């Protein structure tokens, strides 16, 4: 049950009436009348309980884009359901207008649409739908809630997809689909063809030339059907906020760009998200299904405040990548956790796979390192330099162990990682 401002206003008018006709009789009569009106209103209001509420609409949306979820209200009762309705969502679902007017005549149905602009990645759930139906006098209302479960999955925004066209152009250059044919643009033998002026003389295949009537050259193409395994560290270092978003979000962005590029290059891409336990995995998705499968798996990922278990991760990687693969570890280049966790198990990975470690760097550290002018700023700069030196040391150690290390700010990392991938592919190191 709920009351309205109109009832309070009537009570105020009643106070005026009592002032004009001052007697207990007037007072009791006014209030009895109000009580009677409320009773009538409640009796004649449409039942919120009987109202049928159904939901339909978007179940997935990319972060930053709007989603629409529609409520269909069916009024099976004999009276018109008229009043207000609240379609409650969790705050980060970003529902602009949760409260709606409600007016469903008896036996009919109406639609109400809530527009969501989620502010955070992950699964955003609808809370209850609360209906308040007013009586014909508009003095009192009946109120009830319905549980109409709905989940909108908010996918990573993939802001780095703007880099994709330029990287794909580079890939086509490598692929030999352009007229340029240079040795070194791949290691996989493609075919023999006749020499044309302009070809690199080093690519002449003398043995084939001897058999044929003409000078033959070998053509090469980059390897295809390689295996790329993206490993996301969702441990405590991924929780750190860089700029406005957690480090994990930047890592997801880089992983998506690399996955998009690699799947276009004809490689198979798998994903593993792991801290102490496996958080998400995508395996064996076909090229067309890959990106939807990846963003879907990534959407609910949250960084956990635990130390990642690198030996478990290494075991998972070995199980998922039986033959030589490109293993991309997306983590933070923090000396302590890497030296204690990753370095001991690294030889297991590097002997069988090409390992790339991609780390989201913090521009704030560079900002601190440039601090000059007063003691506090210089001490900050010294601390930042200490951190950078330690990172450089662990980076050098990783490189000695045969790992490619890529570091960049959230904006720089995705294209840099893509470049590293292309360079590895060009060098035939996959």
């Amino acid at each position, binding site marked *: 049950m709920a009351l309205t401002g109109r009832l309070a206003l009537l009570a105020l008018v009643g106070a005026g009436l009592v002032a004009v006709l001052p007697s207990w009789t007037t007072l009791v009569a006014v209030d009895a009348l109000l009580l009677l009106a409320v009773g009538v209103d409640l009796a004649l209001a449409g039942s919120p309980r009987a109202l049928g509420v159904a939901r339909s609409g978007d179940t997935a949306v990319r972060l930053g884009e709007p989603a629409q979820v529609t409520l269909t209200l069916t009024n099976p009762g004999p009276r018109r359901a008229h009043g207000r309705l609240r379609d409650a969502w969790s705050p980060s679902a970003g529902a602009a207008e949760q409260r709606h007017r409600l007016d469903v005549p008896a036996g009919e149905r109406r639609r109400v649409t809530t527009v969501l602009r989620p502010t955070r990645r992950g699964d955003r759930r609808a809370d209850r739908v609360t209906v308040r139906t007013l009586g014909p006098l508009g003095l009192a209302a009946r109120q009830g809630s319905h549980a109409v479960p709905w989940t909108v999955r908010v996918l990573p925004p993939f802001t780095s997809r703007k880099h994709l066209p330029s990287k794909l152009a580079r890939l086509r250059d490598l692929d030999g689909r352009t007229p340029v044919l240079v040795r070194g643009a791949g290691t996989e033998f493609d075919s023999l063809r006749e020499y044309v002026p302009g070809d690199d003389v080093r690519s002449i295949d003398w043995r084939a030339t001897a058999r044929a009537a003409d000078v033959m050259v070998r053509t090469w193409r980059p390897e295809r059907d390689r295996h790329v395994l993206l490993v996301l560290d969702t441990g405590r270092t991924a929780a750190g906020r860089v700029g406005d978003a957690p480090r994990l979000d930047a890592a997801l962005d880089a992983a998506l760009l690399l996955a998009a590029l690699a799947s276009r290059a004809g490689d198979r891409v798998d994903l593993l998200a792991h801290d102490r336990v496996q958080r998400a995995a995508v395996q064996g998705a076909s090229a067309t299904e890959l990106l939807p499968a990846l963003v879907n798996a990534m959407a609910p990922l949250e960084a956990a405040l635990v130390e990642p278990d690198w030996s478990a991760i290494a075991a998972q990687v070995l199980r998922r990548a039986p033959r030589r693969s490109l293993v991309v570890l997306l983590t933070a280049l923090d000396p302590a956790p890497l030296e204690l966790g990753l370095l001991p198990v690294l030889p297991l990975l590097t002997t069988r796979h090409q390992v790339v470690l991609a780390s989201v760097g913090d521009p704030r550290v560079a900002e601190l390192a440039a601090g000059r002018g007063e003691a506090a700023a210089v001490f*900050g700069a010294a601390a930042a330099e200490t951190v950078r030196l330690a990172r450089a040391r662990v980076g050098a150690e990783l490189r000695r162990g045969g790992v490619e290390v890529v570091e960049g700010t959230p904006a720089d990392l995705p294209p840099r990682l893509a470049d590293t991938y292309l360079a590895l592919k060009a060098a035939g190191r996959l």
Partner: protein
Amino acid sequence: MSAPAGVAEARTSTALEPTAAQRMRGLRRPALVVGLLVVVAVVLAALRSGTVRGYLDPDAATPSGARALRVLLEDRGVEVVRTRTSADATARATGGRTLLVATSWLLTSAQVEELAAARADLVLVEPTPDLLAALAPGIEPAEPVTVRPRDPACTLRAATRAGRAETGGGTFTVTGPAAASAQRCYADSGRAAVVSLTSADGRTTTVLGSGAALTNDRLAREGNAALTLNLLGAQDELVWYLPTVELSAEGEGTGLRALLPGWVWLVAVQLAVTVLLVALWRGRRLGPVVVEPLPVVVRAAETTEGRGRLYQRAGARDRAAAALRAASLERLRPVVGHGRGTDPDAVVAAVAARTGRPAVDVAALLYGAAPTDDAALVRLADDLDTLERTVRRP
């Protein structure tokens, strides 16, 4: 690359509205809480109502009350009658009794006039000028003095038997025909703190400048008890008049209710109903507040900043300088063509050759002693920057 947005079919609902029985069950707890509150309020009110407080109140056991004095008087066979209205006080104050008037600043002029009809002996404690003029003509107030023990220095029997007592406060002078017979006691440079007059019909009027001697707090000091007992216990009955604010000067049909027209109360009731309805209208929410767990947010550079502040607090200029120098060297070495782990002398020589600076200066900058104060550290950072710039663009 289009967003893999999904659309799903309608799902139906379940009503969450509780049934009447569930509602009643839900009300049980609030009802219990309200009941408990009422019980606590009643108990507290019952406990508090027993306490009487107030200045010179014969029932108050607080430091400023006068219960001790009353009990002592009753022990000595004096009947103490307490009254709160001027009419009652005047009616009781017949001959052969003593009328004590305290806190007279609460009296209205009409009440003062009424008291002038009293025929009893009078003891006026801290009287106002109006009261003095009406009840003790001839006694006039003078400048006040501090309350402290004084000697009586007069022939008033009550005072001489009591000896030293804490008196003071208001003082009085006596003028007119009464001046000759007046007893001026506890005087301080000619102004008496206690003055006693005996009128032609044998009534005595005693005026006290301060009620301090009567209070529970001070009764036991010096001769306070003796003085006050003698003054108040002179007759068998004592009327203790402690004025209260009497709203109706006429002393009939008192109270706020009588002053307001009847309809105001009715309107007030209806307005209370209105306020209740407004509260119910605004208080009912359209569904509960929705909560959600939020992810942990820690700035990634927080530890680095913290380390900088720790350096500063500990005054670790040596470590800070070493870090800055190591970072500079890391950047300089590749430029001058040396690798990691090169002999410092070779690096210094190469940098010196490239910049044209003396090798000693470069060595002092890159491998010198730790700076001795913060200003030197700031200078070192700037010098390293300058050196790096010149190495890059010699």
